[in-house]
């Protein structure tokens, strides 16, 4: 299939030592890890009703409650009303990255339609300067999710990759990931052979 030299060149000489079955096993193992991650993500979307059930805090505007790299779990159930004091994640037209801020004003009409205003705990002013031009209020459809759970520090890898985009293409980073996968794979194999 591949010459031994080319495999060595790509740093995959391990593969040349495997027979066909082992190769397939390694590939399926990898596919398993990727697809189960995807399944968990999509499953969470269904259960929470939010298009992005887990977000990493990217800015310091909610300090000292949330720091950069903290992880938030979101839900977005239609029947739960928006109330003052809760922390929502919303998207603004013209901004790609969703914002995590606290609701400070709510006006709800008889038909249930609602407009509200947000502010970051660490900011001095409300978010009207962040909204789209001429937009004074957020509405229900702007909400991506509402913060329900908090775990500190876990999303720090995202922050590091955002701050140093070069890291994404750097070899040590992918080497580490590859080693991790191989390690998991070998561990399983060893256990299976035992």
């Amino acid at each position, binding site marked *: 299939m591949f010459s031994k030299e080319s495999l060595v060149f790509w740093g995959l000489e391990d593969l040349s030592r495997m027979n066909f079955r082992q190769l397939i096993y390694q590939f399926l193992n990898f596919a398993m890890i990727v697809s189960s991650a995807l399944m968990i993500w999509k499953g969470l979307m269904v259960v929470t009703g939010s298009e992005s059930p887990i977000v990493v805090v990217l800015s310091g505007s909610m300090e000292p409650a949330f720091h950069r790299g903290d992880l938030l779990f979101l839900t977005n159930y239609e029947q739960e009303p928006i109330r003052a004091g809760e922390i929502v994640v919303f998207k603004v037209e013209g901004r790609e990255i969703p914002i995590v801020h606290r609701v400070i004003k709510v006006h709800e009409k008889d038909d249930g339609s609602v407009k509200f205003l947000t502010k970051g705990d660490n900011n001095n002013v409300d978010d*009207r300067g962040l909204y789209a031009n001429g937009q004074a209020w957020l509405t229900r459809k702007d909400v991506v999710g509402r913060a329900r759970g908090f*775990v500190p520090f876990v999303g720090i890898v995202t922050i590091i990759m955002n701050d140093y985009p070069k890291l994404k293409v750097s070899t040590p980073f992918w080497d580490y990931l590859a080693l991790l996968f191989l390690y998991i794979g070998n561990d399983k194999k060893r256990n299976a052979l035992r």
Partner: protein
Amino acid sequence: MNLLVIALKILIDLAMHTAFARLNAVCAFNLSTLAALTFLCFASTFFNDYNTQVSINAANVVLKNVPDYIVSREKNDLGILKIDVTSDLEPLFNWNVKQLFLYLTAEYESKNNKLNQVVLWDKIIKRGEKALIKIKNEPLKYYFWDDGNGLLGHKNVTLYLSWNIIPNAGTLPRWVGTGTHRLTFPSEYTQMRTNF
């Protein structure tokens, strides 16, 4: 003979344990221990009661009818008042409370809206800081703008203090303090200049 083989195997195994494998093992153990402790920290405080007494009072209540140019040119009701808030929040703290976010809300019904909630004042109390709230005759931190002209002569605006508990790890519950204040607005707008 058997013993020799086993000893050899152990030796080879030890040699195979490279620095990377050791590092990996140490990191994995640390991480799983931290994860377990964090979960215990969350589980041990999940059912806690975070309620306590609050006393709220308001004074110097006046009402203006002026445009909020950030929103529109139309005139809206603007309530101006001074507030007193007293509460001891020390008992709310435990090992899974990193911070309390206190906020004073005015809630009322108006012609335009079935429900209005306006946060008038807030405060962050971090763990270790003094958690005894005693503010007297303090002006509002945020403007009390109504969405329209719903505050004129309003006799039933409820002021209450709530807190959002920010844990070290876990859920983010919001609790409303026991003790509210019923605020009434005058049925005339003031024409005087007022200090906010």
